[in-house]
């Protein structure tokens, strides 16, 4: 089959950027990586990209296809070629470009290192007569998904929080953090949770779920971040405004049932900071956006949600396990047939429908 690609080239020496189009004849089973190999072999030997294992385990070939981060070796080109679509291939986002499709992974590695990705032994010596401590399957289940990470960086590429704050640890490092927070052998759980709850950590996540969507290995980094939040709050680590914000929702649910919106601001930010923003609040109030807290808006039968809270507390499911439950059953829900039909009619690659990559200097016409 004939496969076309438009590749954003970047020349380090001249700092010039150009969109180059290539077309090669590739076997029907070819992946994006196979096609790039063919281009490099037969058309343009100067094309730069990273690759190694070709089987979705080394994590080298993360790049963007039409604005979405993918592993090139996992992405089959048959459907794209059949649709007559020529995808735009570019370097991953949120990391500096070195050359063509190669990004500098140093900031990524720095953040991974910052979460101390090794076990700090905290288990007791085996009982006399026992040779070793055994970690049970249940204990490992808590961090099974986080253990699947291949450090490819796809989750980081479209992270909206990291775009807004480049110092944010980001989904890969936080998922790695959870992998050790949840490890039964680790003795630094509380210290880790303290560190991960600092600014640039857990509470910087804006819950855009791009990481969950992009991860090619099913790590579900956003879920890992939620697990860290739950574990931190369970340990009483709640200094951050994000933690206070989350706790107020719990308080609201068990007292009135509905969110006590107006009180949420001082409960999150503190009274002093709230008062500084009083002019803003007044303007909102004029349009009914600041509902008076009294009398409170109370849900009918709210005693049920209060009692539920007591029961749940007594049953004492570990925070993280509340998110793990049922997770193994997660699969992809197939869209309804009529949705498929509508999408097919519209064409899978409608004009301008991809998020624009947002690396500095990359504001060119990268969307198709």
């Amino acid at each position, binding site marked *: 089959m004939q496969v076309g690609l438009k590749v954003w080239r970047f020349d380090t020496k001249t700092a010039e950027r150009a969109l180059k189009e290539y077309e090669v004849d590739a076997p029907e089973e070819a992946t994006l990586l196979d096609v790039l190999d063919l281009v490099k072999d037969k058309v343009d030997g100067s094309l730069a990209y990273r690759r190694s294992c070709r089987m979705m385990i080394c994590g080298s070939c993360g790049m963007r296809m039409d604005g979405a981060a993918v592993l090139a070796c996992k992405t089959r080109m048959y459907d794209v070629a059949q649709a007559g679509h020529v995808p735009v291939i570019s370097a991953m986002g949120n990391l500096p470009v070195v050359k063509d499709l190669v990004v500098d992974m140093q900031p990524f590695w720095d953040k991974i290192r910052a979460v101390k990705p090794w076990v700090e032994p905290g288990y007791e010596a085996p009982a006399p007569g026992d040779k070793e401590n055994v970690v049970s399957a249940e204990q490992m289940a808590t961090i099974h998904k986080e253990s699947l990470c291949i450090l490819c960086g796809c989750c980081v590429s479209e992270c909206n929080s990291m775009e807004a704050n480049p110092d944010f640890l980001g989904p890969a490092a936080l998922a790695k953090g959870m992998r050790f927070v949840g490890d039964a052998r680790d003795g630094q759980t509380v210290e880790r949770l303290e560190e991960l709850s600092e600014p640039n950590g857990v509470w910087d996540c804006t819950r855009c779920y791009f990481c969950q969507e992009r991860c090619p290995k099913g790590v579900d980094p956003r879920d890992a971040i939620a697990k860290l939040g739950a574990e931190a709050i369970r340990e009483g680590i709640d200094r951050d405004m994000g933690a206070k914000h989350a706790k107020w929702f719990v308080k609201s*649910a068990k007292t009135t049932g509905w969110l006590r919106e107006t009180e949420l601001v001082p409960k999150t930010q503190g009274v002093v900071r709230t008062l500084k923003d009083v002019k803003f609040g007044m303007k909102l109030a004029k349009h009914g956006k600041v509902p008076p807290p009294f009398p409170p808006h109370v849900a009918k039968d709210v005693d049920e949600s209060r*009692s539920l*809270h007591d029961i*749940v507390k007594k049953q004492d499911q570990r925070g993280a396990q509340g998110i793990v439950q049922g997770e193994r059953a997660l699969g992809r829900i197939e869209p309804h047939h*009529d949705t498929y039909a509508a999408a097919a009619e519209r064409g899978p690659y409608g*004009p301008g*429908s991809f998020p624009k990559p947002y690396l500095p200097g990359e504001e060119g016409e990268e969307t198709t």
Partner: protein
Amino acid sequence: MRVAYYKGCLASLSAKELDISTQALAPKLGLELVELESVTCCGAGDIQQAEPDYYLHLNARILAYAEAQGCDTLLTICNVCTLNLRQANFQIQKDEALRERVSANLSAVGAPPYSGGVDVQHFLWLIAQGDGYEKLKEVAHHGLKGLKIAPFYGCQILRPSKLLGVDDPDRPHTLEAVIAACGGEAVDYPAKVKCCGFPIIQAREEMALAELIQPIEQAMEAGADAMVTPCPLCHLSLDAWQQKLEKQTGRSFDMPILHLSQLVGVAAGLSDSELKFKRHVVSMKPVLEKLDV
């Protein structure tokens, strides 16, 4: 179609205009809304991140009350409610041991048990496809006179797609379909699928504003007369926090923001008292003048 109606926190109070316009619109679209009285907040992702097991129970309780009303569909009008309820529902439906424990706990506090028989559907999905779309086309005959509308999806109606699964997360089309059916012209811009910053707008305001400016700026550059969103949290962020962006950048945006139900409501000829545009921070006047309403 008889559906259980879950309006959530914001539409109950600070975004009342969303609830009022949805209720006014529903009969015209053939939707019989069964209001749930005893339900609570879904937790907005915050309770999931603080006490996940409590989050599951609160959402199971909402689903249980819908089931007890004999409804097999729970209608949501907020992205965040949609994801929270669908995620809890999916976990409960697929994990028998969890379902039994949660149901037993619900019964113990006097709530109905939950057998897993409810499907959570966002209002957008019901009117953008199938019979609902046909109904929409009949109802929206007042048209939007070619008004240029920027669709803003927000996050939790698109991602994670394995839990939502109606729109393609990178190539969504439902809002565009609704805008077209209402006689408007959808403008395209890349940030329509990105985050509005709302979940961290109180804890990390600077970051949130750096996210918020993208859709507003891009919609303006694309020549939009107004933006429309299916989520009241995105609405609050885009509408109310827009003035903070103006203060921060020294620029004026004046971008009117419509709830989805208001956009359809205008096209369906709802009255002022049903649309409640006065409850918006950014004035809707320029849009209404163009529409000659």
